[in-house]
């Protein structure tokens, strides 16, 4: 499934979309950044409740397809600007991490 389908299918809010056509090949959930760094696979959708700027560095370096902030978490203006400048796909799901992951697994 493609990143742009997350909004269409589940109504997730698009906070920053750089490449909506990017294909998602799996899902990784986690909030400990170096754990995620070592375990998330390239082109995964990464679901987390963390929203500080370091999330963007981890997303960029581990090359995930998108970050999905769960629990309706949003980005501060400053962090959003960084997401834009780094070109990182970030969405926000109103649901908790588990429900968000389950939704994606059924897609």
């Amino acid at each position, binding site marked *: 499934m493609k990143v742009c389908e997350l909004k269409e299918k589940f109504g997730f809010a698009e906070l920053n979309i750089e490449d909506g056509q990017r294909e998602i090949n799996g899902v990784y959930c986690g*909030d*400990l*950044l*170096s*754990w995620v*760094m*070592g375990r998330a696979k*390239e082109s995964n959708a990464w679901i987390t409740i*963390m929203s*500080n*700027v*370091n*999330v963007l*560095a*981890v997303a*960029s*370096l*581990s*090359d995930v397809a998108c970050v999905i902030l769960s629990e309706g978490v949003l980005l501060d203006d400053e962090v959003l600007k960084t997401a834009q400048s*780094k070109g990182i796909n970030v969405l926000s799901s109103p649901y908790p991490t588990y429900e968000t992951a389950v939704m994606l697994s059924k897609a």
Partner: protein
Amino acid sequence: MVTVRYMDKLIKFEFDVDGTDFTSAGQASVNVKKHLRQLGLSPEVIRRVSIAMYEGEINMVIHAKGGKAEVNVYEDRVEIILRDTGPGIKDINLAMQEGYSTATDNVRSLGFGAGMGLPNMKRYTDNMEIESVLGEGTTIKMTVNLN
């Protein structure tokens, strides 16, 4: 950042890692990633270098008040050297264990301090050497082979 070319054999990148600004940590790694892409290295190699370097960079920020990062690209390998003049690592074997961390609660609340950094660095590189002297600092050299 300085880029030096020696007879198209070696490309060298150097960065100062700011130990006072936690929010900008990762800049050197993101920068290196961009350059390695331009050099046309494989995505897998780039990913491994990026992850290893990022973990090292974060460690310099949270444990050693910053330092210097150097990346050398050879024909057959990428070499990452991280130098700091922080407190040093008392027991390297212990520090290498997954889950071992002396990070503060504040650092943890930002999502770091899982004790996965050094193990990740080892896992993602083909060779890693740590030299550390208590009270003087730590130098970590990592190599990722290109083929």
